[in-house]
């Protein structure tokens, strides 16, 4: 029956096995490195298991570096810019997907094109803009700048989501006397809640992972976000692999948590919402 399957299961398992090792190994290596002692690492013994398992790297990371401050900065920036982006994006996506007004088609295109314009051509003028606003070297500057990529993304994602909600539900509410806004708030928004949550979590991971703007806008060491902070360990201390990897583990965890929730949406192709063809 399953004519859809074009590859023999044995071939699939073999290929998946190889792929799985290639995908998982760097994370495994990162994790065991975080628990290895400095001596063990330099002597190349028991490469694939920490012997002994030590917490020195985490102790050093949390006690002697600015890691905790960076972590807080990242949480603050990612959460704030996600809330802003989700609110703006949800309203905008609804109006672009469902309402009829002058300039709608133009704005839909503008949102999509904005989503496609890469940060690498925007970061210098955006930095100038943020500095003009007096927000250079502040977390507020990052919170102001991040919607430039999270809002178009959330809007684009949710436009597709709103379009998939049957319009009859809204019509029924309005025939029962609800205003357009009432129908949006009481009928459509609750139905769209899973999509809004998913889009918000995506926006969060994007903000959490952002590197270029944070690198350029922030000079104060204490105000760095995690990605920039972590990568600054490289120039400082060549042999800091243990606590660097400990930091990498702690930086990855929040994203993996968000992702565990998101997985079913990704597999259903909502991400791709942007890319369903």
């Amino acid at each position, binding site marked *: 029956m399953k004519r859809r399957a074009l590859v023999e299961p044995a071939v699939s398992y073999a290929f998946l096995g190889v792929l799985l090792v290639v995908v998982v190994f*760097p994370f495994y290596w990162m994790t065991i490195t975080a628990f290895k002692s400095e001596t063990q690492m330099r002597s190349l013994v028991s490469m694939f298991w920490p012997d002994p398992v030590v917490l020195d790297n985490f102790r050093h990371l949390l006690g002697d570096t600015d890691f905790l401050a960076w972590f807080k900065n990242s949480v603050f920036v990612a959460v704030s810019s996600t809330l802003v982006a989700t609110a703006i994006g949800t309203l905008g996506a*609804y109006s672009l997907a469902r309402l009829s*007004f002058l300039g709608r088609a133009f704005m839909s295109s503008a949102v999509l094109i904005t989503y496609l*314009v890469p940060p690498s051509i925007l970061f210098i003028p955006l930095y100038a803009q943020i500095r003009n606003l007096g927000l250079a070297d502040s977390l507020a500057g990052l919170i102001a700048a991040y919607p430039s990529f999270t809002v178009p993304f959330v809007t684009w994602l949710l*436009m597709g989501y709103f379009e998939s909600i049957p319009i009859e539900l809204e019509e029924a509410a309005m025939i029962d006397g609800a205003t357009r806004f009432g129908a949006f708030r009481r009928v459509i928004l609750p139905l769209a809640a899973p999509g809004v949550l998913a889009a918000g979590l995506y926006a969060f991971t994007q903000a959490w992972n952002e590197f270029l703007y944070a690198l350029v806008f922030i000079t104060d060491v204490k105000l760095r976000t995690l990605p920039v902070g972590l990568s600054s360990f490289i120039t400082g201390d060549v042999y800091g*692999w243990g606590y660097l990897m400990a930091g990498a583990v702690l930086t990855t965890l929040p*994203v993996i948590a968000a992702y565990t929730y998101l997985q079913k949406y990704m597999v259903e192709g909502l991400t791709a919402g942007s890319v369903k*063809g």
Partner: protein
Amino acid sequence: MATPAARLPGRAALDRREATVGLRLVLGPDYRLGFLFVAPIVLLVLALVAYPFGYAMYLSLTRKYVGVPPVWVGFDNYVKLTWDGFFQRAVANSFIFTFGSVSVKLLLGVAMALVLTSRIRFRSFFTGVLLIPWVAPTVVSALNFLWIYDYSLGVLNYLLVRVFRVLPQGVGWLSEANTAMASVIAVNIWRGFPFFGISFLAGMKAIPAELYEAAAVDGAGPLQRFWRVTLPGIKNIVIIVVLLSTIWTFNDFQIVYILTKGGPGGATQVIPVLTYEIAFGAQRLGEAIAVALYLLPALAVVIIVLARYMRRGQAR
């Protein structure tokens, strides 16, 4: 695109307020709520994208140092860049980096989607795990590979020299000119192929099973079903994902910046990293923006083609 229902409130309100009829005709039936909801996006796009972009175009036509007012120089920056060896090399490297990465990601992505649609168990487990590189912070992945590639203590040399004994001695993966580019490309592929795979998987699942049935009844083997049913079925997604990834890869800053900073000796220098270095290392902003914008016409073509495909997909 206007659906009949979108006019409903318009019709109800017509009876109430005759005076707004004209406005509604011009601005559309839902203009009040529509404008209100879309206003923040308009402001945001103007302030954070359109204005900076326009300003960037202007700055690229000036000589501008940090903290000093710009001086108009016309197309000087662009003309100079055209004959600049560093820039030429960065352009060439950017193309090698992009096409090397995207082509392998495409092949791996198709393979990943094909095996995930075959008759296997634990499908959702495999799918979930394979997506992790795409979800994990790029900085973390780049730092992981920096550590894996490390010459003396890295695990790659350890495996190749001591465990599998395929090399007599370690390789400085990122510090030798002939391996550095391949090494950074590998990291980009590792991080990016799951996106190809998951998108193609969604596309393959959307192909009606009857098409495969019909092809099988007509005597088509797996290979023919792939060429005649699967590929045509995911064609649009393939185009979209390839173009999207081309833009992202061409503009990938983090992987190269963290792994090599463009080195050794410019062997992996790509446009985004060169832009950053000219802007914040040399403090020559006008020239830096010209580097970033030099290939704008090509980027614009890709974006316009891609946007058409994506809108067609969404309006489906």
